[in-house]
């Protein structure tokens, strides 16, 4: 294999796929990146056996070939070379020679045949949505995914297709985030898949605000998302996502309408003096008034009051302030509606007049 390429052209694809290369691997070849050079260009592939990222660039290839080289090292070399550098890569015997001007590097390689290929996506169903739609779905829900929960099926994002709607749901058991779009796919059959946490984060990183369509293929064990620049493939979590519909409260009788930004700012200030570990704050609602209180183990206290649109019984309820802040930040619009029932029941947070995004937060007993 022999090719010559500008630093900028090589750096971009490397940075796009590096995210999945784990710093500590179970297999040496997983620390490498697969370069597949043919007459027209180069394909870059990286994997951690769960998520695979692949991207392709056009390039002048003198001698085609396939090889794997240490991912972080080639990236670091490329990054630290001068901006206008031209890089020449030559593979002979078991070495990859990287040369740029008077800089020369010899990298070890592993044969391309050692590189684990993803299984073929079987019985895939295929549709496309705009990249912006997919990005919004993830933007609005990603923060609610569980992290290393023993309920392994919560450590990811649930994507639901069908019934003319495309829906993303994430929950860590304490709060739940849901975002949905009218389906542009015409799917009729309902299907739920769970994309693992790391895959979701990688995909999120690669998506941009654009109306271009992305192609989504869903197989029995994999999801594949193809954008103009990258092909993302992830294994799915083999598990059943809990019945999220059941935990979205329907008996909320106390509807509070508030200025979203005002409430967010007040919570943010109050959170400074909440217990660092539990992050508990107290919300008190009464006629036209919302009161937020927090205190920490040092007995320092914070108190905020502001006007809300509410007429009804008063209620005092505790929450983890982070969960409320996450929900308020994920919403858009000037106002927010918080629907409560009692001090032991979950609350529903949404934009008034729209239920495209819904957030459910369980209270805290303080």
């Amino acid at each position, binding site marked *: 294999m022999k090719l010559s390429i500008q630093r900028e052209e090589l750096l971009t694809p490397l940075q796009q796929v590096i995210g999945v290369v784990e710093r500590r691997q*179970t297999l040496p070849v997983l620390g490498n990146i697969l370069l597949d050079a043919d007459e027209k260009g180069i394909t870059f592939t990286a994997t951690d056996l769960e998520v695979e990222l692949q991207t392709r660039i056009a390039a002048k290839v003198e001698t085609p070939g396939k090889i794997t080289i240490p991912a972080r090292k080639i990236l670091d070399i490329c990054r630290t070379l001068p901006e206008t550098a031209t890089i020449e890569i030559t593979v002979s015997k078991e070495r990859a020679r990287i040369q740029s001007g008077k800089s020369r590097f010899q990298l070890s390689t592993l044969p391309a045949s050692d590189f684990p290929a993803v299984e073929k996506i079987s019985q895939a169903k295929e549709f496309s949505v705009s990249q912006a739609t997919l990005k919004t779905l993830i933007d609005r829900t990603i923060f609610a995914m569980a992290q*290393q*929960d*023993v309920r*392994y099926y919560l450590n990811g994002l649930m994507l639901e297709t069908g019934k003319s709607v495309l829906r993303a749901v994430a*929950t860590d*058991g*304490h*709060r*739940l985030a849901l975002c949905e779009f009218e389906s542009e796919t015409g799917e009729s059959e309902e299907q739920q898949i769970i994309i693992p946490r790391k895959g979701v984060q990688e995909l999120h990183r690669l998506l941009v605000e654009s109306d271009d369509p992305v192609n989504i293929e869903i197989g029995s064990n994999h999801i594949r998302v193809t954008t103009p620049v990258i092909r993302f493939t992830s294994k799915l979590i083999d598990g059943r996502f*809990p019945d999220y519909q059941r*935990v979205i409260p329907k008996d909320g009788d106390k509807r509070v309408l508030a200025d979203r930004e005002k409430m967010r700012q007040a919570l943010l200030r109050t959170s400074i003096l909440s*217990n660092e570990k*539990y992050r*508990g704050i107290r919300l008190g609602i009464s006629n036209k008034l919302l009161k937020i209180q927090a205190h920490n183990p040092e007995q320092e206290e914070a108190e905020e009051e502001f006007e809300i649109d509410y007429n009804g019984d008063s209620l005092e309820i*505790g929450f*983890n302030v982070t969960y409320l802040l996450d929900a308020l930040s994920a919403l858009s619009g000037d106002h927010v509606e918080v629907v409560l029932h009692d001090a*032991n029941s*979950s609350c529903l947070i949404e934009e008034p007049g729209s239920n495209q995004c819904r957030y*459910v937060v*369980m*209270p*805290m*007993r*303080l």
Partner: protein
Amino acid sequence: MSRISGACLIFHMDTQSESLPNHKSPQRDHRWIAHVDLDAFFASCEQREYPEYRGRPVIIGALPGHRGVVAAASYEARKFGVHSAMPISEAARRCPDAVYLRPDMAKYRRVSKQIFKILETITPVVETASIDEAYLDVSGLERLMGPPEVIGRTIRQRICEQTGLTASVGIGPNRLIAKLGSEFCKPDGLTVIYPDKVSGFLAPMPVSNLRGLGHQTGKIFNTLGIRTIAQLRNFPLSLLEEHLGGKAAANFRRQAFGTASDRVMPGQRRKSISKETTFENDIRDNDILHDVLRRLAADVAMTARREGLSGSIVTLKIRYTGFETHTRQQKRQAPTQDEREILKTAWSLYLDGKLPRKPVRLIGVGISDWGKEKAVQTDLFDQPKQRELDQRLLKTIDNVTGKFGKGMLQLGLSRNDDK
């Protein structure tokens, strides 16, 4: 056995220092903390009960020919290089003629209780550090008993007179110095370190005496050429931080200068509950491991329920062939005393803990971190009714076990559950 004849080392105030020790005045700017450590406790209990074992090496733990480790060794056995946590096969090789006994925890607990009662005659401020170790705050006892040397002697004397066992006592201005003091004069000794002698007392000690210095940190210190505490003190902090991280560097530096907590928490309960087992033959089969872990989790959970404790941290311990030992911990969302929860967490640690897949010699599970959860985050998928039923079920199992013995009634967890 030797009586109160052991070494008594006093790192005393200089007489030429401007303030002479004034034991009459209780006003000081430091406290006096005593660390009491029973010498070879399990072995001494056995020697006390069986006079024929006295003067002979006694090793408590697994029996030779079986597998397991030394839980305790008498000082006669230690002369042969036997120490706790050593594989029993190694102990048997070094000291084939020792008396080998299985531990009798109920007996040791009885004796321990007696000793803590004695300590409470010295001061009510007694903290249980383990079955054979305690911290006492003896500040302000000078008027009643005399200088710290006398307090230390009294502690040792009372324990010896009433139980026939010997203890090592370290007395210093804080917990660290007290503990290092008791180690310094083991066995059967007393060390008193006055505040102005702390620095000199620590200086020549190897850094390995410091708390929290394990194998990995030890290696780092070694490469940095830090062997003694004096060297550690003179080592630039910024460089230390680079190698150990800010938190650990600050911690070791504090210790090197003899700074530590001087708070003794009486009524301190146990910090963890754990059970482990060593296999006669190394195990590869996940089904067997899961099954053993299930039984251990049930044991841990039952002890927890008996003592009214719920732990938020679950620890899994695995030892492989060749004594390579790993532990993995997970903090749970909520504390538990339910064996199913403990098992679930421990098993996920086993599967996802990036552990080597090698034959397993020992497996253990434990819970810790009782922390009174003041704020409880409720769960979306929690079912309060189910929880109530669960509590009744576990209570019933405990009652049956109490009446008819262990294993008579167990939860029918399927072997292939969660795998």
